């Protein structure tokens, strides 16, 4: 089973993972995950260059502190 993720707003560049199948590497909408991402955590839907806004709810919730590849986990290690 591919993973369930939810993109809240059409302009978001991250989705939130909403299941516990952390061994799976694809989401139902076809995004390839580069790593294991826990429930409630975010994945980049596209490349986010260093310094670019991380957008969720259609709002800049933070900035990428390094370039984030599509499918990478987005959290405090690469966003603040």
């Amino acid at each position: 089973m591919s993973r369930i993720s939810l993109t809240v707003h059409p302009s978001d560049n991250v989705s939130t993972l909403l299941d516990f199948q952390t061994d799976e590497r694809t989401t139902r909408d076809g995004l390839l995950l580069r790593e294991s991402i826990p429930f409630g955590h975010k994945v980049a839907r596209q490349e986010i260059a260093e310094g670019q806004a991380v957008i969720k709810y259609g709002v800049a919730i933070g900035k990428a502190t390094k370039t984030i590849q599509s499918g990478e986990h987005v959290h405090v290690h690469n966003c603040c």
Partner: protein
Amino acid sequence: MSTIAAKPLSTAMRDGLSFMGFLRQGGLVGVRNHLAVISTVALCNRIAELAAQRYEAGNGESVLQIKGEFQRGLQLADAQLQNQVIRQLIEHPNIGAALVLCHDRRSAQALQKLFSGKPVEVLAVMDGEGVENTVDLASLALKRLSQQILGQVRVPCPFSKLTFALECGGSDASSAVCSNPAVGQFVDVAIAHGARVIVSETAEFIGGEEVIRAQSISPEIAQSIINCIAITEARMAGDGDHYRGVNPTAENIEAGLTTLIEKTMGAVCKIGNSNFEGCLSFGQSPTGPGLYFMDTPFFSPCSITGMVAAGAQITLFSMGVFNPSGNPLAPTLKICGNPQTVKNWSDGIDVNLSSLITGEMSLDEGGNQVLQAVVDTANGLVTKTEKWGEGQFIIPRSLPVF
């Protein structure tokens, strides 16, 4: 900040949204036609309860009870707010007729003068001649009042007659990405149809200042909301609770929340893409259609009381884990996207959005379900909190009580 318009919900739902409501004086509309007993002060609560029970036993109809707390001993702004909210609740369009119980004759006479258009009787408990006699007088008054609303029927009303209170409680990862955004979708549609929407709980907006700047109709309105947030934050800091510095907490970070604004948006996304038209004080009514911020404490029964006093006829209550609260006067829709909560608490939940998590439902469909439930409720469908008789009224106080 993007300003993408709300996606259209199903065409049939959007065209000519209307409902069947009770027309009141001054063009107000009720979604309920309650016979209410309102006790203005705790001293009268038991008499009110006994009168309601006596009336219900004799007539087989239920009476909505609104109970008082302090009255004397309150100072200045607290005393004014107490009186204002009680008056607003009596005038609320979901009440068809009201019996108001005061302790003394002077308060009763002052209140009686205020209501001309609506069936309202005000009794002073001190004017009774014994407990038995006073309960009798009160239940007879309820009987007279009930006859005055007997023939009232629902008539077609436009959606623009509705004011909604937004609330969230028991928040978790599911409410941040399921029920709150679905409520946001509904809010955009409701506002497009001329409704008023109020969101409150000032503390929940700490960290959301940029969103408020981006989603207000003027810089002045944004600033007035941001000032309320700053005052609340300073008061919280007075207790040694430095909200901004410690958020998101280690627990939040473990749950996947990266920044304070992300945490705040989990609640604030209830407002959808709409813009704030004004900043209201506790209980203050909106002056026109659109989205309004109300400066209230974050405790749900208290913040909902402020929005209902301001005229909200329906409350939308988004949850993650279960929170029993609601409002007795403004039917409260409990909306939940957490599959475990839905499974355990189906007898307390009105809108089940758990298939958003399983991917079987889109957010648009979620918004549609909320809208359908709102229309059904406005037409008279009994909500779960109404079924259980759940709900409280709490008026905040900021000064010592004597």
